[in-house]
């Protein structure tokens, strides 16, 4: 039986979808639901996690993320400007920093910062400060590249127009170029916040006290104390989605807005 090209394309699509459905069904059938139900979906025993997961876990994750973002954004802006500088030394420093901190795992930075620096300088410092700086140091390397792209996307004529009105270089950057760059990078910057939210889960290595637990540490703590298997981690994971999905929607909104108008 001869088929037209359009019919053949449609049949091939059905076959692909069929293979996909069969694969998922096979996975579901192969799963040991009884065992996993006790250790992952054991919601009967997780009562004690509430309301602490809100008041401690969620709140601390949000605080650490915001603090890390503030440091990351300031540092990232500085690095981006350095990378675009006409002074070679600034460019080298910025490039070195960015490549180094993007290239090594964030976990290592946190360990080095949390344990290495106090040893090196003989001080024991505030845990919130350590968290803020270690998250910020890693975030700034990523944010710097995003901002650099944004700064370069602002047409050269904008700086020329501002300078022609008698604005000094720094004033033209602060008033004219940087605000436009931020508009351009709002969607990718929102994604950086999502990454940072998840990276904040790694700071459990710094030895937090109970009141400093963020979501992941709070979940791990639940594993050892509640006897509900891995269920507390599943709950913690759901709370991350509570933060990241709205951010993701926000990023999409920014994207469609900047696609609609060039402003």
């Amino acid at each position, binding site marked *: 039986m001869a088929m037209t090209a359009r019919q053949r394309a449609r049949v091939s699509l059905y076959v692909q979808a069929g293979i996909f459905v069969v694969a998922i069904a096979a996975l579901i059938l192969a799963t040991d639901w009884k065992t996993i139900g006790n250790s992952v979906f054991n919601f009967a025993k997780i009562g004690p996690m509430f309301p602490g997961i809100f008041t401690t876990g969620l709140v601390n994750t949000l605080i650490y993320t915001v603090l890390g973002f503030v440091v990351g954004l300031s540092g990232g802006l500085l690095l981006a400007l350095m990378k675009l500088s006409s002074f070679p030394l600034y460019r080298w420093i910025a490039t070195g920093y960015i490549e180094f901190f993007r290239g090594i795992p964030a976990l290592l930075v946190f360990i080095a910062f949390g344990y290495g620096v106090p040893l090196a300088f003989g001080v024991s410092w505030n845990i919130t400060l350590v968290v803020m700086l270690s998250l910020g140091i890693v975030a700034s390397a990523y944010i710097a590249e995003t901002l650099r792209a944004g700064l370069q996307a602002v*047409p050269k*004529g*904008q700086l*020329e*127009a*501002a*300078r*022609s*009105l*008698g*604005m*000094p270089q720094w*004033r033209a950057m602060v*008033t*004219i170029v940087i*605000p*436009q760059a931020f*508009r351009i990078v709002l969607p990718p910057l929102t994604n950086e916040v999502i990454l940072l939210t998840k990276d904040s889960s790694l700071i459990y290595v710094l030895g937090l006290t109970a009141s400093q637990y963020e979501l992941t540490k709070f979940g791990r703590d639940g594993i050892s104390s509640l006897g509900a298997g891995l269920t507390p981690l599943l709950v913690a994971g759901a709370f991350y989605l509570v933060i990241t999905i709205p951010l993701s929607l926000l990023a999409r909104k920014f994207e469609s807005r900047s696609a609609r*108008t*060039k*402003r």
Partner: protein
Amino acid sequence: MNDVVNNSRGGTATVHAAGVSITDLRKSYGTNEVLKGISLDVAPGEVVCLIGPSGSGKSTLLRCVNLLEQPNQGSIHVGGFEATDPDVDIDKMRRKVGMVFQQFNLFPHLDAKRNCSIAQVKVLKRSQAEADKVSLHNLERVGLGHLADRFPDQLSGGQQQRVAIARALSMDPELMLFDEPTSALDPETVGDVLSVMRNLAKEGMTMLVVTHEMGFAREVADRVVFMDGGVVVEEGVAEQVIAAPAQPRTKEFLRRVLDPTHIEIEE
């Protein structure tokens, strides 16, 4: 300077107008010399149009005047400033020199009024209220007082260029530089921009205009300067240079510009 200017356009106005004096200006990009020793004087209140083929160096010359391009040799005096002095306060000098770009370069994140007021507030340290008043006055001057709240992307090309002129005027410049101000416009909006420039000339503003609008040059300019290959080929009274050029290169250029569809039949 507070000169009463009588000019050929019949206008008499009290303005602060500055002159320009350019002597033996040279500018190279690498080994490519784009300005090969230009000398040009513009008197306070005078309107000079720079014409010539693309690549002749006229835009570069204009951009050297407010130091958007750094000349390699020669001197430029603008008002009381020597632009080519390595010790010159560039920002202070630029306050006196308005620049209008081919691509408008309005600030897209600010509305028309804020486009005009931002530098007044940040550079001239005027209060926002005073700056707004000056901005509105200048927007009205270019016929756009009613669109002061619009953002650049809500304005036509011609309207954007007029806002750009109002923005430059809001700094109370003594000299205005125009870099092909109508070249990026739809034909039907060119006239509005040219008539704003014509009024400005009547008010006695010193203007240095790079343009391809020969009708405007002929009507408004006191003098026309024809450049080609980085040198001034011919300069003189507008009417004379455009209607009866002396140099063959000027003749050839004007023939192409004024009669672009003319086809030479070669044997």
